[in-house]
């Protein structure tokens, strides 16, 4: 086998090897992409759930600090609106 033939053979083998490696790489990347897609989907769902929960908690918080709730709490602790003459203003400390 001449030197040229050998070179040609090696180049062909290298090319075939490269194609094989690239093919395997493409398969591996596809598997990774699918895994990532599953993970992203799960994370999306979790994010949606958490956002939904955050909105519900905000509603709950707003309900708890609503004037009706505050008044009920104030009544429980014997607090009420100060009448004229019951107010003392302390001057600004600045």
């Amino acid at each position, binding site marked *: 086998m001449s030197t040229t033939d050998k070179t040609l053979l090696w180049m062909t083998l290298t090319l075939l090897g490269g194609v094989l490696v690239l093919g395997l790489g493409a398969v591996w990347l596809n598997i990774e992409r*699918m895994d*990532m*897609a*599953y993970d*992203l*989907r799960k994370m*999306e769902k979790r994010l*949606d759930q958490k956002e*939904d929960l955050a*909105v*519900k908690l*905000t*509603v*709950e918080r*707003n*309900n708890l*600090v*609503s*004037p*009706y709730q505050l*008044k009920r709490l104030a009544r429980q602790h014997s607090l009420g*609106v*100060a*009448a*004229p*003459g019951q*107010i*003392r*203003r*302390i*001057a600004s*400390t600045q």
Partner: protein
Amino acid sequence: MAKGKQWRKDHSGIKIGLVMALFAIAFAGLWVRTGWVQIHDGGFLARQASKQNLAAEYEYGERGRIFDRNGEMLATSVEAKSIYVRPFEVENIDATASTLAGILKLSRTAVRKKLASKKKFVWIKRQVADKESIAISHAKMKGIRLTSEFSRIYPNGHLAGQVLGFVDVDGKGREGIEFLFNDRMKPGKAQFVVQRDAKGQRLYLDAQGREMDINGLDVRLTIDTHIQHAAEQALAKSIAKYDARAGIVLVIDVKSGDILAMANQPFFNPNAVRSSKPGQRRLRPLTDTYEPGSILKPLMFAAALEEKVITSDTLINCENGRWKVGRKVIRDTHPEKWLPAHKVLRYSSNIGSAKIGMDMGAGVYHSYLTKLGFGEKTHIGLPGESRGILRPAQKWTDIDLAAISFGQGIGTTALQMAKAYLCIANEGTTKELNLIKLPGPKRKNAAVQVFSPATAATVLSMMKEVVHEDGTGRSARIPGITMAGKTGTAQKAVKGGYGDQYLSSFVALVPAEEPELLVITMIDEPQKANYGSMVAAPVCREVTVRTLAYHGKLSETLDTVVAENVRVDTLADEPLTGAIATPKAAIVTNKVPNIKGLPLRRALELLARKGIVPVLKGQGMTVKGQKPEAGQPWPEDQIKEGSDDVFVLWLS
């Protein structure tokens, strides 16, 4: 033997040739087929494959929220599950119906009917509670599916319910702000492509289509939840006490024209629209037209003063409480003979007012009423607003003119009345009322000077007498605060005349000079009493007290004379009524000063400057002892968070 071998050898060559030919044909066939599939059917097959692999997914945004002026949430949308059935997928109708009816608290018969439907899709229940949706998904019934929708939540319940309005089950605004700003608040829809695996599970493909904002825009009102609550509470208390049919309270910030509260009774909870009646959903301050009664008198007085028909001291013959105009007799609750004009208003004389109105003339009076906005919508923007009833001046008879002078024979909404009084409070210049802060109002600023500032001030001074002298509004008096007010007790019209039902009302402007707050109360058909002074004035008083307390503007002093000459917010520097002579406040030095003998308030001020909150022992308002003693260094080094003996004051 050799010959036979030679023959077999030749035969093998043919066989090999045949096999090769077969292989060649098979390969050629495969190539042809590959070419056919790839080139001819390629596009079609690619589309078929993408149908299996890819799917369109929709995402719906959230409806815009509604906030009050301070950013308190009044309405928001929360994701909720809705349950539907694909009837042809249901395996055991009876068992499924029983389970669904049990979890969702529905009639089993009704559910069974839906399950047996011939349709492809039937709603079972929409926007269910989280507990119910979890129970349904755990039950794993065939054909029963859950989907996400947004349900509207109003965290404050019935607070400003009629103002907010409500949305239907499809999230479309039907009343109030929800209706008015439906286009602004309605959410958008995003469509994007997702990948599907063999089981049909959906996977993330790319970010395309997800970056757009699909949420509706928010709306911010001028309403203040705390003042709204105060107004609703005071109103509800009065309605219950006097067994009235309905009521309205409006609280308006004079400087900006912002409506701080718009309370309606009966209440309406937008979270429970289905259980409400249409009467509860009505926003009465703009839909209901009332004959206002005596609260119209100050406006008539302003017109008469402006036209120089009267001065504050013009004597009016009030006919001892009985006067005949045409075939009608006008009566006064407080019969008097001669009264100066300011006392006509103070005692709310119908006869005196009628005479002033008649002196002024129908055309002039009508023009002022028109300039004040009566007979026209206020254009606040909400649906269902009434124009009120203001007939042309040409059609007014003498009796009409007399009656309209004391607030009968004319129909106004509470909002129109508020706008007219805002003009008086704003030194005689009209000002638009605002309910919406965001988006900003698009109305033009069409301010008109209806009265001179001097006329407006005179009317306010007359209205102040109503509250602070022996007028009809004494029950609204707040110690230490000046108030200009006017009571109203209007007879309600029935078919063919006036019946025995009344509208009790009160208008308050606080403080009386340069008002900052306007409060209007109307109580419809109170049963146990009907005078504005008894029914409506206390409501106004309570709302005003709570609003001033909320703004930190309630007076420290009970002395109104002090308050007369000092603005409400500067009263802080006035000495307490009956307080002991105030020693000069000690100057803050490096050493602890002698605080003994100081009033508690001054001592607290002094210590507050050093950041010290002392422990108080004993009762009283004067400091009789202190620790550390005068001359000692300030206890700065010893201050520890939570320690309670850094500075002790003994009181007497």
